[in-house]
């Protein structure tokens, strides 16, 4: 058995026994389930309001029947995707940091390095272990949320919906792996362990929260509750025509957003799940034609992150670490 696989197996065993990891994943699962439940409750509230409105119309003698609100089951996953975006990335960082920190804290680092392990065996083993862990976690979350859509959302799913959910799961796996592996690299580079965690959290803060927040708040449509253009009763084609006059501003705003890996994850997931109206109920080929660029950058970022972690988690960097 290669030393890389032995280290990967050790990581899997460690994480299976880690109560903190179990608590984090349980928290993420509960938050995701809550988001499905809340979205379903919100839809039911809309439906009740619609039914009341129709009753009142009928009582007033009107024969007009307005269009009923329609449930698109995968749109119930919007909150869950956003929780993965924010909390999932944070927990991924903690997990990545923990794989390096524990060796120092437990005193197993010297023991590990005393064995005839290859130059890349330790980081590659840890990356491999984490990729398996995140695969299992994403699979469990996917099954849980799919069941939640059926049971809590009281919706039905077609075969194509399952395919969309599976694509979103692969995207989520890449995104979570990116953050865990980045945290390994940062922790390996930091002289102090706590500095590694704090620096990784600052990176998370900047790319997951601050940059998307700036992009969102610079969006002219986000300046009024419910949307500026809705408040001004502007139709979508007119909105696009008006915004074309502000291309430089919009270019800067969009440029900021796409500099964050989180926005790539969000746009891919929202497109394939049909959460973004433009792609709702559209064929997968059409979505892919628009989204392949995001898929490639997310995959490239994950590969770059793995290269960074494997390159900097050296024997020398690990041994100079202090707690």
């Amino acid at each position, binding site marked *: 058995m290669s030393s890389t696989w032995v280290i990967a197996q050790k990581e899997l065993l460690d994480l299976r026994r880690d109560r*903190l990891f179990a608590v*984090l994943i349980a*928290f993420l699962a509960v*938050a995701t389930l*809550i*988001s499905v439940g*809340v979205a379903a*409750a*919100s839809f039911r*509230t809309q439906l*009740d*309001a619609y039914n009341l409105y129709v009753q009142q119309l009928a009582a007033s003698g009107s024969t007009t029947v307005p269009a009923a609100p329609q449930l698109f089951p995968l749109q119930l996953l*919007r*909150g869950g995707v*956003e*929780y993965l*975006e*924010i*909390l999932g990335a*944070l927990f991924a960082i*903690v997990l990545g*940091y*923990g794989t390096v*920190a524990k060796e120092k*804290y437990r005193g197993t680092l010297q023991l590990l390095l005393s064995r005839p392990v290859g130059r890349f065996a330790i980081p590659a083993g840890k990356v491999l272990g984490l990729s398996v862990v995140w695969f299992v976690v994403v699979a469990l979350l996917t099954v849980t949320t799919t069941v939640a859509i059926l049971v809590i959302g009281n919706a039905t799913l077609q075969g194509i919906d399952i395919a969309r959910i599976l694509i979103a799961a692969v995207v989520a796996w890449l995104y979570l792996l990116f953050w865990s592996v980045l945290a390994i690299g940062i922790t390996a580079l930091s002289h102090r*362990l*706590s500095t590694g*965690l*704090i*620096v990784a*959290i*600052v990176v998370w*803060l*900047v790319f997951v*929260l*601050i940059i*998307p*927040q*700036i992009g*969102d*708040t*610079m969006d*002219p449509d*986000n*300046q*009024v*509750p419910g949307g*500026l253009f809705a*408040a*001004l*009763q*502007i139709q979508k084609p*007119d909105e696009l*025509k*008006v915004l074309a*006059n*502000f291309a430089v*501003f919009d270019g800067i705003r969009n440029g900021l957003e796409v500099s964050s890996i989180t926005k790539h994850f*969000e746009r891919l997931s929202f497109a394939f799940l049909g959460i973004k109206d433009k792609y709702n109920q559209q064929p997968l080929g059409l979505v892919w034609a628009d989204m392949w660029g995001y898929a490639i950058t997310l995959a490239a970022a994950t590969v770059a992150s793995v290269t960074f972690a494997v390159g900097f988690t050296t024997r020398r960097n690990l041994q100079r670490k202090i*707690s």
Partner: protein
Amino acid sequence: MNTFLVSAGHEMLNTRRARTAHLLLFVFIGMIIASSIIGWVTNRTVTGVYEKVVADGLTTAPNPFAGVTPLYYLRNAVIYVVLIGSLMAIVLGVQATLRDRKAATTDLVLSRPVGSVSRLLGQLAGLGVVLAAAIGISFFVSWVIISVINGAPLGSADTGRVIIFALLSWVLLTTFALLGMLTGLRSKQETTALLVPFVIWSAVAFVLPQIGTAARPVSLLNPVPAVSSTGGYFDIVSMVTGPVSVTEQFKSASSIILQDTAVTGNAAFSILILVGVLAVMTVIVVATPRSRMRSGLNE
């Protein structure tokens, strides 16, 4: 010099020397300052969009930004206090208490005639001064920038509002610093000490408001409030989760103080909740027994 003042002075000295704390402090101060510029650029563009819409004859609705106050430019700062400030305060709080436990200096300090309450209150006061300095610097520079944008210094009424907003920010950040101190005192491992308050923060900032309003987690990062779901389930749940969502209470009170037209209501209730939570957290931290303060880490 008494224990309280020595502890406060020691805490300030440690923070001045901690390079990781500086990283967060710089990010916080930088973003609060940048928020005014972001607000100004966005406001100019949105005004341009509105003028273009009117010129094209697409609407007769009034300009939603007509008559906004100069403090409008500060509204992004509300989010940065919640996002960056809270995390910075947590890290400072954790480091304050964990530092002594890691180096086992608590044993030495408590072997002297030192009261644990004075010691913890002194550390809290030191952190409070550091937070006040960060808030003071960033809000003063923001005040200058907004004055430059408006072509005249902000009037006394607006300046007063900025000061009240700064005080409220201090209350929120000190509460999170106390949360960090608490986990720093109670946790058996450094990772847990840092992680638990982050999880609590994320639950308070993202999960609780969503349960009661169906607002999307990401939309909670926008200073403009999302349209809340109401009726039945949501009315009952938001009644329960509303007061516990301290970050939402902070956003609501700050927006009212800064005269954001998108938020209505009375800030008094939210301020009362924030001050109440600060008081409760202070009592909980100060009541930490000496044996707990002296306990080592189980790494």
